[in-house]
């Protein structure tokens, strides 16, 4: 009796490879995930190229050199010169040569260009915070779950304390106290974001610990660290990945919210929340100042959430065929 099965690789990694292929197959079938992935990749590429496409000096807080260090105030709050929409009193139509697709802000800077410059700032922060929180939280959770006992209790109680705060409050208090630079904001958000990973990883470890292969490995004489890092953790990684992808959007939103509330180191820093903050006082005069940066953030967060959500569906062991 012959069967048509293709050549099968043997071993642990072969099983993981087959699993991965199945996952990718399921992902490809889901149109929402594909859309999200494409948009996410677009933004990643954009953030890498942003400083090449747009001259970062245009964000210069001390004014444009060609205007003698001043800002070109006749470009303040201008909408696209070809549009005739009357946005309200006080808006002048721009007479100059430049074309602004998204309007200009209170310093006369082109909003489109500022948005492009802002994207890498946010993406970079999101990556650092998400990865940092995930790694940190996962490690602690793994140790807590594996070692158990007093360590586990201590870690649990600590996360309980963190969980009793709404995230924003904690980040605010941290940020207000520690300072207003970007690194300290990152630290503040990282401290807020790590507890869920601890719980997640701990839960996974507790489940895996009971499984047969762990006992087998111990019988073979493998050391604890080896078991933990080479065997248990790779098996538990999927929910962490899902959570990280979903958190990515949340971090961007929270970070920009902090900026919006006034924690940014400088008011002219191109960052999505900051740009929106500038528009807060002028919302009815120049709504585009808030609409477009916020919209950009929405799209980025949505893209990553689509991917993360689809990933979660696909990786849920109960929903897999």
């Amino acid at each position, binding site marked *: 009796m012959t069967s048509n099965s293709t050549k099968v690789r043997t071993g642990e990694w072969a099983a993981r490879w087959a699993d991965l292929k199945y996952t990718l197959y399921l992902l490809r079938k889901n*149109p*929402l995930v594909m859309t999200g992935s494409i948009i996410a990749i677009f933004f990643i590429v954009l953030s890498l190229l942003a400083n090449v496409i747009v001259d970062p000096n245009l964000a210069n807080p001390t004014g444009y050199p060609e205007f003698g260090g001043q800002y070109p105030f006749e470009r303040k709050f201008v909408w696209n010169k070809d549009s005739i929409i009357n946005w*309200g009193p006080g808006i002048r139509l721009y007479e100059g040569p430049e074309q602004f697709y998204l309007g200009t802000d209170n310093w006369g800077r082109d909003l489109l260009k500022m948005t492009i410059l802002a994207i890498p700032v946010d993406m970079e922060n999101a990556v650092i915070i998400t990865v940092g929180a995930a790694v940190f939280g996962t490690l602690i959770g793994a140790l807590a779950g594996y070692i158990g006992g007093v360590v586990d209790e201590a870690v649990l*109680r*600590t996360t*309980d*304390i963190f*969980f*009793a*705060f*709404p*995230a*924003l*409050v904690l980040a*605010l*208090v*941290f940020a*207000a*106290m*520690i*300072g207003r630079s970007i690194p300290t904001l990152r630290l503040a958000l990282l401290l807020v974001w790590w507890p869920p990973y601890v719980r997640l990883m701990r839960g996974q470890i507790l489940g895996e610990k009971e499984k047969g292969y762990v006992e087998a490995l111990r019988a073979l004489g493998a050391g604890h660290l080896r078991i933990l890092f080479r065997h248990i953790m790779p098996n538990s990684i999927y929910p962490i990945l899902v959570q990280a992808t979903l958190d990515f*959007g949340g971090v961007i*939103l929270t970070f*920009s*919210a902090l900026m*919006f*509330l*006034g924690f940014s180191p400088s008011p002219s820093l191109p960052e999505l*929340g900051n740009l*929106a903050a500038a528009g*807060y006082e002028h*919302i*009815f005069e120049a*709504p585009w100042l*808030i*609409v477009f*940066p*916020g*919209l950009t*953030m*929405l799209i980025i*967060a*949505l893209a990553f*959430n*689509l991917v993360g*959500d689809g990933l979660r569906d696909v990786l*849920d062991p*109960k*929903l897999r065929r």
Partner: protein
Amino acid sequence: MKVYEYVIRRLILMIFVLLGVSILVFYLARGFPSGLAPWAPYIHPKMTEEQIQDVKRSHGFDQPIHIQYFYWVRDILHGDWGLTGIWAQGRPANEVFFSHFPYTIELSITAIILTVAIGLPLGVISALKNNKLPDHVSRIIALTGYSTPSYWFGFILQLVFFYYFSLWGLPYLPSSGASGMEGAVARVTGMPVLDGLLAGNLEYTIDAVRHLILPAFSLAFISLGFLARIVRASMLEVMRQDYITLARSKGLKERVVVYRHALKNALIPAVTLTGIFFALLLGGAMITEYVFAWPGVGQLSLRAVFQGDSNFLLVYTLIIAAIIVIANLVVDVAYIFLDPRIKY
């Protein structure tokens, strides 16, 4: 163990959590020089140096941080929650908090109602028409809500429903505050809608409701996505269960199968989540309150943070933390009653 034993155990744990929270916030709030000097509300320019020293000593402001903490605990147990800074007219922190808390409660309750009213059906439809068009559509709606910056959405709502509607001559909704007719009605609960109803003042009530719509919807939009996802996942799992096959085999209409057999099982996690949501909304609606100038405790805490007012922040975080922990407890206990299989 019996239910009440479980509850007592959890309450004891809660005390530890609150202690931890208070220590954390205390250290952050008073440990850094950038904040408001905690003794500032107690003194005024006319006091002599000696009187100032007296004040400092009685509240322990001249001591190092860890000693100060015990002074603070002592004060708390005597009912003295500290005074706020100039930004809140130097009133006692708890008075400031509780005078504004009802507004936050009103907003949160309305937001939760909206969240459940929209999020629940969205999740159920998503599950029943899994992977077909209604599923994709409701997923996009849910995820969009999830991905929206709260301040941005608030603004968009204000822009459209307040500014443009009034520009275009349409009936518009107010963009800020909780009521346009302050003081027209006796303050009983502190919540404008309820007070209006209690006083029988229809105009006031309607005005309060009009003010409530936009901020509540802004909050709800973001949380309904989350709820819909949970409901969907839960429903999907339930529909695959054997007892659903049996119910169908009895010849029951599909609608009955869903409503009588599936929903009750699927909603258990959703109910527990809603409880926790409510608690979180109470504490975290800051940005929405800020954007809509809603006189709740969220925007107060924002100002307190900027002023570095440690007294108010301590009151705020402790009460909100207590609410969250209690909400968790309530939800866990509710779980016991909802699912007849669980016994403690």
